[in-house]
């Protein structure tokens, strides 16, 4: 338990990269990139957790409660927005790529070489 969350984050990262490397479909590759990114959320929040802590939202909790780290949560929020927008942009590129190349298979893209 002491390192499990960190190791899970590492696993998610590597499996996502594996998917990117072996992908035969660019849409799938973009999905794998999203998976890779979720490793960063897991690591951030795992680092911010405190045993017995509760969310630093004091609307329904006394202000002296033991809380988890609010900063990493804010960072994770930012990170999620970044991920969603990057995904959107890359998918837009894939849509156009398919129109101009007639394929979404990275193996068949051969315009840029050498």
């Amino acid at each position, binding site marked *: 338990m002491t390192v499990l969350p960190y190791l899970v984050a590492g696993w998610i990262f590597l499996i996502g990269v594996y*998917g990117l490397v072996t992908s*035969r479909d660019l849409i799938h590759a973009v999905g794998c990139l999203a998976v890779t990114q979720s490793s960063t959320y897991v690591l951030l929040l795992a680092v911010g957790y405190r045993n017995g802590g509760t969310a630093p939202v004091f609307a329904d909790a006394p202000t002296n409660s033991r809380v988890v780290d609010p900063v990493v949560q804010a960072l994770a929020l930012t990170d999620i927005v970044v991920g969603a927008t990057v995904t959107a942009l890359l998918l837009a590129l894939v849509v156009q790529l398919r129109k101009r190349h007639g394929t979404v298979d990275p193996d068949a893209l051969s315009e840029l070489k050498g």
Partner: protein
Amino acid sequence: MTDVLIVVALLLVAGAATAAVLNRDPVRQALVLSFLGLTLALLFTFLQAPDVALSQLAVGSAVTPLMILLTVRKVRRRPGSGGDGADKPAGRER
């Protein structure tokens, strides 16, 4: 007890991430991604981060898979203009 929930959620997330990568068909992957989004939201709630859970829920289980589906729909609507058979990615058949 919280620890047990966290461990189960972590393993679910790891499993869902693996499944999302190994499902080579984008439509199938979109569904697994939305599952991944939901389990991540659960994990974040257990890690006392409801704010992050909410946005993960909104983005990961709704917007991202929806965009993937729309892209697939556009991409598969018709064969490519320069298609010579090579435009048929593996795992396209369901």
